[in-house]
């Protein structure tokens, strides 16, 4: 009875708090199961997006992979990994499914009836091996990045921003861009400002004008660009961030 009450109470908690509970306690598998159960439609939906075909919960391998990924996300999530748990979980699911699809493709090749053992001959040339390995890495990166970009588009849509608009607002001058980056960093590093952005879906103008010596007009003119930068830096975009690392660090 008491336990049940406890569960009910916990259901009213936000996902982030529930997850913190799960991560803290050991015997909380019941809550974990409940959470997963509740988000099956979300997991299914995300898997469908990545595969670009309908994923059934009953007999698609991709769904099992997505489930495992979601579970992994629950245990790995932390406040500084993305704007929300669901956004983080979505990214983890996407990554895992890409990994799975790649793995399957490789299997298909080796199981082919016409399989000829030509790979070994190629292996002898170290330069070639290196090149093919590099190419493989690049292709994998591209796929990860693509999923991150789709995720970014979805996030921007919540703010009512399209990438076309961002490209029109994007400052041409390098100094101007660096200033905007500085503003974005300020927002993300300050929990209050970050909270404001995620909650209200707009820039905390008042706080910004206080802490930054830049005219309100300049910030407002580059509003969409700054928000985009915030999302890129805030979410768990490993590959996009890696691409921008020279500039952002």
């Amino acid at each position, binding site marked *: 009875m008491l336990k049940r009450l406890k569960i009910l109470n916990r259901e009213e908690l936000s996902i982030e708090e529930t997850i913190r509970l799960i991560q803290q306690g050991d015997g909380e598998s019941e809550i974990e199961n409940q959470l997963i159960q509740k988000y099956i439609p979300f997991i299914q939906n995300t898997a469908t997006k990545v595969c670009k075909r309908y994923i059934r919960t009953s007999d698609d391998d991709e769904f099992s992979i997505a489930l495992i990924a979601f579970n992994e996300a629950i245990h790995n999530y932390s406040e500084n990994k993305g704007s929300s748990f669901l956004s983080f979980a979505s990214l983890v699911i996407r990554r895992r499914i890409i990994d799975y699809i790649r793995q399957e493709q490789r299997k298909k090749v080796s199981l082919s009836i016409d399989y000829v053992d030509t790979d070994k001959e190629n292996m002898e040339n170290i330069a070639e091996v290196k090149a093919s390995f590099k190419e493989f890495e690049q292709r994998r990166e591209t796929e990860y990045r693509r999923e991150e*970009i789709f995720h970014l588009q979805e996030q921007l849509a919540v703010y009512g921003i399209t990438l*076309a608009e961002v490209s029109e607002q994007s400052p041409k001058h390098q100094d101007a861009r660096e200033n905007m980056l500085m503003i974005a960093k300020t927002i993300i590093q300050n929990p209050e400002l970050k909270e404001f952005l995620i909650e209200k879906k707009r820039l905390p103008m008042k706080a910004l004008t206080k802490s930054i010596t830049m005219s309100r007009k300049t910030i407002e003119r580059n509003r969409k660009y700054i928000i985009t930068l915030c999302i890129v830096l805030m979410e768990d975009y490993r590959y996009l961030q890696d691409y921008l690392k020279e*500039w952002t660090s």
Partner: protein
Amino acid sequence: MNKGVVLEKHKRFMIVMTNEGEFIKAKLREDVDIGEEIPFSPIQVPKWSTIYQSKKYVSVMAAAILLLAFLPIYQFISPDKAYGLVTVDINPSLEFTVNSNYDVIDAEGYNEDGRTIIKGLKDQVIGQPLNVAVSLLITKGNELGYLSNENDIYISSSLTLTEESWGESYERWMEAIQQNYEVNFITINLDNEIFEAAKELSISPTKFVFLRDAQEEGIEIDVEQMKNRSIEDIEADRGKKLDKLISPESIKVNAPFKRGKPENPGNSDHKKNNEKQQEKEEKREEQKEEKEKKNRGNGNNQGNNKSKDDEHPSNKKNENSNKQQNKKEDHPSSKKEKKEKQNQGNNGRQNQNNGNQGQNQNNGNQGQNQNNGNQNQGNNNNN
């Protein structure tokens, strides 16, 4: 070359992010996937807002709009604008309107006949140069029976009919037409004023010249009636010829088929018509005779074959026929001559008389006819 990750692909461009945090619209490449890092070339899209804001642009655009407003309208319209008029009076009277390229853009009839003739011709004529249009008109007029021999065709124009405006040399064109039809051309150059005044009355400008003259003399003329009369008739009605009414430089007559016109221009219409009929009758007779001659020629041939056995009767026959022939035959066509020549060559003895008579009776006959005579004589001697 810039490099960037493809973020979005649109219909005409794609959005690329550089590793310096720049989001750029780039030229679309079909072969790349989203997420790929590629070299790209940016596209500059001038935004309207920046154009409005810049004073420099505003002044430039204002100047451009002013230029657009005044300059090109004339150029746009002029190709289809009436540039000149050419009217043709056969007696169906018609008008061709040409544009500055001297292509026909409109064709209209001044009278009933003109409208009938143009009805089936308009579509063919429009867009053609003048020489083609008027040639088509003459062919069509001939088909519909408007064209008789020795017809006068009055072509009046506000343009000077040069090779450029007519489409080919006007003189050569007339010659070509005259090879097919026995028609005379009277080319008249008239002022635009006359064309305009004639247009108001919707009468052929050539006829308008007569009308104006009559009005100056204080004579009332029924315009409607005048429209349907041929210019020759009008000349007769008025007792004046066209070349008296306009300056001689502006009228050119090309009339190789001109028959003898009455000496006195003051002859009455009736009289003139009689003469016309007479002439026509004469002509018909001539044609008949020519036909007969042909038949006789054939007869000769047959007769010749026979006469190898029986000389005398055929000889007589030939005598008679040839007499007649030579008397009437004022303008023998060379073709027929040749035929006869052959016949005579084949049978010299029978043509003996023929040859002699040809020499005696027909002094006017020259050339081949005489030669025939000589040949015949030669044959005679041999015999």
